[in-house]
């Protein structure tokens, strides 16, 4: 983690991405408006594609957390032809993971993660 972004800066980048979890992205990102958000280094494969393929497959089979935007997110990960960075922000309920271009001027993809629905939660 070598870079940081201001919450308002991140919000401006991601506002046009139509991925929405239970908590709006604005609420999650602006939760602590004065705290800088860490951004990963720019690399051609910013996130481990194998791990995210497993997460996509699990979602397709109806298991695990409720996800919004996961198919597009993994599709972008598979086909990235430019270095990108990732940012993760968590609210009280929802976590958003974003891919940004290396200059942090553009959001490329997003996924929203919410807890599994009650019927899928283990009983123990």
């Amino acid at each position, binding site marked *: *983690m070598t870079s940081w972004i201001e919450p308002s800066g991140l919000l401006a980048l991601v506002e046009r991405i139509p991925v929405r979890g239970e908590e709006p992205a604005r609420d999650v990102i602006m939760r602590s408006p004065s705290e800088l958000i860490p951004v990963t280094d720019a690399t051609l494969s910013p*996130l481990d594609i194998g791990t995210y393929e497993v997460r996509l497959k699990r979602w397709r089979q109806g*298991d*695990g957390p409720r996800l919004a935007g996961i198919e597009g997110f993994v599709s972008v990960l598979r086909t990235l032809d430019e270095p990108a960075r*990732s940012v993760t922000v968590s609210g009280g309920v929802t976590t958003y993971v974003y891919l940004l271009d290396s200059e942090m001027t553009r959001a490329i993809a997003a996924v929203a993660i919410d807890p599994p629905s009650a019927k899928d939660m283990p009983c123990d």
Partner: protein
Amino acid sequence: MIALIRAAVLALLLSLLAPWVTSTAGAATTVPTQVAYTYDAAGTPSPRAASHVDRGPPATSYDDAVQGSVIPRNLSGSTTAEVHNHGVVGDLAESPFTSWTRDPAIAQRFAGDDGVILRLPTGRPPAGSSWKFEWSPDVWFEDEVLVRGPVYGAWRIQ
């Protein structure tokens, strides 16, 4: 007299710790002892455990995995549990952790149909173990438990 007793106790302690401690340029460095779990003929781990965590290592770790070994990519790396959980490639290369799960189905997913699955009993690792359990933020609801340090002698269940 008290000083003599103190010196004797100190010497005894040092002799007991000798296999674990080496001196490098005057500074004591703890060297992790590699302790393998043992299993009886029925495959029950010793010490007995009421629960366990599993890991489905990636194919790139197959050779180690078939021997029950799981080696983090950088034993002294500074990658945090949060970053490891997010799967950030550059930081995974510097991670002292490996990912395990309380949910066997998750381990199966990561292992694939033909992959290896390893198992560790939960609870406090035996004294002198080279690894320890650590908390994961588990953002992806995978019942993830992180293990810091190398594991040797994990039970291969698949």
